[in-house]
Each structure stands twice: as structure tokens, then as C-alpha cells.
């Protein structure tokens, strides 16, 4: 092996390990959210218990006498835990871990991520980006024996993923690592075949810039222009306009309770009445807004699906999306989480409603009996399907180059 070859390969290897280590630190930072969600839920429950079951000395109603109001105060936050392989493919993990809560018989995103938009916009430095951007350059331009170069991606992955903090204790993790290694191997094979077919440096550079930068950039541009994601500004306006007539009506019904303050209930009304009216009102608000939200969500899903398809026009974007799905930082895990959060929201609402006929507020012991959210890791099929499609597409790219004639 020549000196230049040794320098190139070592530089790639070291940079990849640095990326993996950086990913590990990022993952550790992200893991704080898991702890914070648990702490916040515990605090909510404890404060709820402290306030539940009290009777005002003056015999006046209290906010916590309302099952709905107390339920809202102790409703748990829900967030998917940090994916095991997140350190290897950070992507937009922070963005994909929205914080949800039960609301109005279902669940909705309760809190916006509070991340530094400036750092998020600058992207991350992780193993996935090393493979997507840098591995092709090494394979195209670094001198070295073909077999060694072919094994470079898988080798770096096998060392980098554990270094990035991936737990190696579950079968799921090992399956993900195996798929990741296969993906990097197929991607490497594609670029090695390009190297064999193209001998002029500047043509290699042109192929690189086209497939790694230009096609993915054009794909995002075209999808953004032709099938843009929904306008959240428009949705906010439509939501408010849809709520206007409904809230005009429900505000009249909730007037004796100042909209959401059963503690100030006026003579002739009871907190139990508030609970009934409030639940009905929330159902009406939801009915008014749900179609609009669904339409926006459908549009976002359509936008993403179109982009997923167009991304197959480049092996680089194919690999990137497949790696994200394999690592759990893609969209499929988020979608599964959201579905489970909505299902829990229904369970939560049913749990509260079951206690409303008692005619009194929730007792501390009853708070313990309310449903608890437990996260179910995404099914293997949900991530393996997009990752498997990625494997097939990368294989096809390799076959296509294999058939191509030797160029300049």
C-alpha cells in the first residue's frame, strides 16, 4: 500500500471515529429529555395528589374538584426515548421527538422542541454523513486495493456504531447494525464500480457532485416547489376561523365557569356540570379542527412520500434516508409514536370519564389508577421496510453501473 493510500484511508478512518464520538456526545445530550419527561410526569402526579381530595375550609369549590381540570394538570407528557443508534445518524432526531400530551379525547403535540435553531440549521457531524459524503470521495480518489476499499464502509460502521453509543444488548440493535453494514457495503460497491468505469479525475468529480449534491438538492427543490408541505400559517388561520362559531356557542355554555375556571362557579351551577359541559365543548372544538389538521397532516405525509420516491434518483439520498430509518431517527418511528400517543389519549379520556359519574373530584388514590403511558419501540417491519427498499435500490444502482460502458 502506498504512502498516499495509507494517509487517505487513515484520515477517513480517524474522521469517521471522530464523527462517531461526536454522535455519542450528542446522543448523551439528547438522553436528558428521557429523564426530564419522567421527572415532569412524576412532579405533575405528586402535585395532583397534593391538591386532590382537599375540601376548602370555606366550602368553596376548588379547581381540583373538577375531574377534567385535575386530569389536565396531571396528564403525562409523552416523548419517544432516544433511539439506540441515534448517535450514528443524528439527523433531525431532536425534531422527530415531539412532546405530546392527551387532549380532548385524543392527543396532540403539547410542547414545541426547545432546541437552538441556529445549531440545528447548521446540521450535524455524524457517521451517516461521513458515509454519504466522504466515503465516495475516498473510494473514487484514494489509491488502494479494491477489496480493502470495498470493506471500508462496513468496517468503519462496525467500529463506529458501538463507539456512537449504540446499546448492543438487544436483538433489534444487532439487526439494525447488520442492515446498516449492508447498506454501507452496497453504497461502497456502487462507488467502486464508478471508479472502475471512469478514469478521468474531473469526470469522477462530476459524477460525485451530481449524485451526492446536485440530484438530492434538485429533489428537495422540486418536491418543495411542486408538492410543498402544508402551510402552518394558513392552518393557524383556518383553525381560528373554524373555532370562531363553535367557541361562540361553547363560551355561552361555559360562561358560568369563566370558560375554564370551575373554582369560580356561580350560584346555581356545580363543578360536575362544568365537567360535562367542558368535555362536550372540547369534543366540538376537536370536531371543528380535526379535518383541517388531518388535511395538513395528509399533505405533509404526501410531501414526504414523494420526496422518499424522488430520493431514489441518487444513491446518496437513498443511503441517507435508509440509514436514518435504520437508526430510528427517521420519520417512521415518529409516526408510530404519534399513533400510539393518540391511542393513549383515548384511553386517558376514557379513564377520566369513567370517574366522572361519582360526582366528586378525583381522590389521590384514583390518580394512581389512571392509565400510564408506556412507550412501545417501533415494530421491526416499520423501519425494515424503508431500509429494505434502500438496500434494493442501492443494489440496483450497482447493477446499473455494472452494465455501463467504461468511460473516459
Amino acid at each position: 500500500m502506498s504512502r498516499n493510500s495509507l494517509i487517505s484511508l487513515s484520515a477517513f478512518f480517524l474522521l469517521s471515529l471522530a464523527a462517531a464520538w461526536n454522535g455519542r456526545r450528542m446522543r448523551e445530550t439528547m438522553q436528558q429529555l428521557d429523564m426530564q419527561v419522567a421527572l415532569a410526569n412524576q412532579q405533575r402526579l405528586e402535585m395532583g395528589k397534593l391538591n386532590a381530595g382537599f375540601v376548602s375550609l370555606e366550602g368553596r369549590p376548588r379547581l381540583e374538584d373538577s375531574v377534567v381540570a385535575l386530569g389536565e394538570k396531571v396528564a403525562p407528557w409523552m416523548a419517544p426515548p432516544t433511539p439506540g443508534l441515534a448517535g450514528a445518524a443524528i439527523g433531525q432526531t431532536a425534531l422527530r421527538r415531539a412532546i405530546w400530551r392527551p387532549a380532548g379525547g385524543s392527543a396532540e403535540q403539547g410542547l414545541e422542541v426547545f432546541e437552538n435553531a441556529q445549531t440545528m440549521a447548521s446540521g450535524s457531524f455524524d457517521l451517516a454523513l461521513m458515509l454519504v459524503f466522504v466515503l465516495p470521495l475516498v473510494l473514487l480518489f484514494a489509491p488502494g486495493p479494491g477489496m480493502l476499499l470495498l470493506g471500508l464502509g462496513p468496517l468503519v460502521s462496525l467500529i463506529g456504531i458501538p463507539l456512537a453509543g449504540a446499546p448492543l444488548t438487544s436483538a433489534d440493535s444487532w439487526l439494525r447494525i447488520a442492515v446498516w453494514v449492508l447498506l454501507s457495503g452496497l453504497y461502497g460497491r456502487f462507488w467502486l464500480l464508478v471508479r472502475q468505469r471512469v478514469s478521468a479525475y474531473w469526470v469522477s468529480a462530476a459524477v460525485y457532485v451530481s449524485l451526492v449534491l446536485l440530484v438530492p438538492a434538485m429533489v428537495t427543490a422540486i418536491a418543495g416547489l411542486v408538492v410543498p408541505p402544508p402551510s402552518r400559517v394558513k392552518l393557524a388561520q383556518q383553525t381560528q376561523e373554524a373555532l370562531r362559531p363553535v367557541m361562540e356557542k361553547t363560551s355561552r355554555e361555559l360562561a358560568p365557569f369563566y370558560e375554564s375556571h370551575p373554582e369560580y362557579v356561580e350560584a346555581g351551577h356545580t363543578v360536575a356540570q362544568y365537567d360535562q359541559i367542558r368535555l362536550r365543548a372540547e369534543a366540538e372544538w376537536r370536531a371543528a379542527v380535526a379535518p383541517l389538521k388531518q388535511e395538513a397532516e395528509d399533505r405533509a405525509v404526501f410531501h414526504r412520500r414523494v420526496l422518499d420516491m424522488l430520493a431514489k434518483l441518487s444513491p446518496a439520498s437513498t443511503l441517507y434516508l435508509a440509514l436514518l430509518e435504520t437508526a430510528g431517527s427517521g420519520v417512521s418511528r415518529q409516526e408510530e409514536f404519534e399513533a400510539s400517543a393518540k391511542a393513549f389519549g383515548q384511553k386517558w379520556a376514557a379513564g377520566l370519564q369513567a370517574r366522572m359519574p361519582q360526582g366528586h373530584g378525583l381522590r389521590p388514590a384514583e390518580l394512581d389508577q389512571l392509565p400510564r403511558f408506556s412507550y412501545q419501540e417501533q415494530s421491526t417491519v416499520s423501519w425494515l421496510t424503508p431500509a429494505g427498499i434502500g438496500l434494493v435500490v442501492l443494489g440496483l444502482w450497482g447493477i446499473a453501473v455494472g452494465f455501463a460502458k467504461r468511460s473516459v
Partner: protein
Amino acid sequence: MILSIALKEWKEFWRHRGMRLAAIAYLAIYAISLLVGVTEFGRFERDRSAAQTGLREAWLTQGTKNPHAATHFGTVAFPKRSALSILEPGALPYLGVAAYLRSGQRTGFVDLPARDESPLFGMIRLSPSFCWRVLFPFLIVLLTYSALARDRETGMERYLLAVGSNRATLIFGKTFGVGLVLLGTFLVAFGFGGLVASLAGGFAEEDTSAWLLLGLFYLLFMGTVFFLALAISGLASSSRQALTGGLAMWVLVCVALPGLAADYGRVSTASPSAVELSRIAELDLEKGFDEHPSREARLESTLNLLFKELGVGRREELTVNLAGFNFIAEAEVESVSERRRLGQARRTLMEQTAAMERASVLSPATALDLLSSTLAGTSAAQQDRAVDAAHTYAHGLRRILNRELAAKGKGLGGMMTGDRQLWSQIDSFDPDVPEKAAAAAERSRSITSLLIWFTVAMLAAGTVGLVIPQLGEKA
């Protein structure tokens, strides 16, 4: 002599089909990126303008209801964008576009555009600034790698030196030749971008100067990459080695280091999570904070204050609406708590950005990133003003309506109603466009980093070309 060499480089550039194609492809991609910028800006401004009109109408026609109920209906605020966001979207995809100003809700901007998008946007987002920061440097490497290396490889350098040319003439000729091609491409494209942005978005007062500064900083960055590529070409013994080295430099400067600098900022100080902020805010309101006592004590204190002011001793004797007063008092406490916690969170985010800026000493693209997003009014910190404006607006809205209830709602209580006349006392929300020049002045560290990088790269190119004995010559 210098002119002859420069002209020869020009001619070589135009004769090389691949190079011509590369430059044309770049300009085509850049034009598409401008189209993307103009479309997104136009779409946002159109939606925002329509939404503001629609929301004002919805607010005024919300019907007769209790003034406190109107605070729950509330309204929605949107930030404004500068026309320069067409050229530099900066952090916009990761900044919320709507603040729901309703009682019981925090007033931050939510609904991040990036959440609806494909994760592919996390890898690549086509924008004019992406073209300048990532694609153009690649073009620079492609056009520069052979500038010095090829002559050495083919023996032309030895020949030219043997017939009386000196090294300085060669280096300057090459620099001018390739540099002018790149400078010409840059000026045409950048000027065209500015023209499009000003026509599509209408440049405001300070936009022209911000745009010119933007061009200057881009030029410093391009110059840095150019001189680094030239230095590598001067050091390499073959064209292949020069291209490999140039591409390695491109990967480091344009791909790896900016991501690393951002991650360094992110892990240097842990972000205050929304859950944590919410938890502390809940604790604040329930148990009290600073000079504010617990919720129970606050309610008790408001009651006692009213007893004292009105000279009565029982709730039933109050001539004002107690609930209204409690709403006013609680809204004040909520506002103080929110501002306090938001201030703490912002300080953390500022520390992260400062750490990222410190890392720009190692990453000129990061310095450019921070400077250009600030000059375009699309940096994260610049939305803080809009958040503050929304917070103040929401607080004012609640105060006006709750005061109305407190003052006039004694007899009717929750049944007391307000109407269009009351709703129209509250103006529309109209934030300012982010300030640019003043904000950019705070990025002195980034400016210094860019200048240092430019100077070092220029010196490196000069040193490699003029002083260091050539590796190729040795061979």
C-alpha cells in the same frame, strides 16, 4: 507576462468543455435555488398577509361573550421575514411560524416548517446560500486543482522557469487567471440574486447595505477556499493528488467542520428542554418563586387587598368581580415567570451559539453561516424580538379584557359579555422586520475568523507558491 499567463488560463477554461459545463451547471442550479427562495418567501408572505386579515376579522366577529372567554379564544401571531431570506433562509426552517396567543398557552412561536418536511432536508436544502457555501467551493476546487500541479506534472513549469519566467510571475498569472473566472462567476450570480430578491421581496431600508456586506463576507469565504485550493495545488506532485487534497479540504471546510462546530455548540451547554421549562413554570405558579408566594397565598393576598381597598370584610360585599382581579393578578405572575424562564433559556441558547462562534476559528463556513443568517435577518436570535413582541401583545390583550371583567362584572359575573366594541380596543399584532446591521455588528468574532482565514489562506498560497521548494521538483 502575468497578463499572458492569466489570458492563457482564461482560454484554457473556455476550451475545456467539462469546465464550461461545470460553470453553466452551477449557474443553472443557482437560478433554481433562487426560484425556490422566491417561491417560499412569496408563499409565506401571501399566507401571512391573508391570515392576519382573516384573524383580525375572526377576532372582531367572535360574537358577544365574557371578556375572559375572549382571552381563551385569543388570536395567532406570525413573525415577519426579510426579503434577504430569499438568499439566506438561515435558521428559518427550524423556527416556529405561529404563536397561539391564548390564555393558558405559552407565547413562543411553534409549528416548525422542518417538522413537516422530509428528513432529506437535513442532508441538503437547496438555497442560494447553500450554493455559495457548498457548491461554489466545489467548483473552486475543480477549477483550481490543476492550476499549478499540472504544469509541474507535465514539465511545463521547469520549461517556463528555464526560459526566464520567475516563479512569482507564474503564481500571480495563475491566480489572476483562475481567480478572475471565479470572481466573474460570483459577481454575476450574486448580483443577479440581489436583483431577484429586491424585485420579489422589496428591499427595506437596511437591506441593500446588508446585501452588500453579505457579498463581502461571501467573497472572503470564497477567497479563503480559492487560496487554500491553490496552496494544495502548489504542494501536490500530481493533478490527482491536488484534486484529492482539494476535495479533502472541501469536505473538511464545507461539510465536516460546520456540523462539528454546531454540535460543539449544542453539547457545550445542554439545551433547556421544553419539558423542563414547562415543569419549572408549573412549579413556579403552584409553589411560588422569588417574591411571589404560592398560588393559594396569592389568591388570598388579592382578596385581602380588595377587602382593604374597598373597606369590606366579606366576599359578598365586594363591588368588583373577584375572579376578574384574580385573572389579572395571575396573568401578571404567569408573565413574570414566563419571561424569567425564557430569559434563562435564551441565555443558554446564546451560550451555545457563542460556543459555535468560538468554533468558527476552526471553521470559516460556520463564521459565514452565522454572519449571513444574521445579515439576512434569519438567525435564531433575531426571532427573539418577535417572541417578546408577541408576549407583550398577549399580555396586553389579557390585561385589557380581564380589567373590563373585573371592573364591570360584579353583578353578572361569568354572564357579563363584551362585544365588537370591546374587541376593537385591541390592535392587530404587527411585529417589526428583524434588525440586521446592528445584530451583525455583534458577530465580531465571526468577522475576525473570516478575516484570519482569508489572510492565512492567502499567505499559505503565496508561501507554497513562492517560498517552499516544490515537492514535484524534488521528485
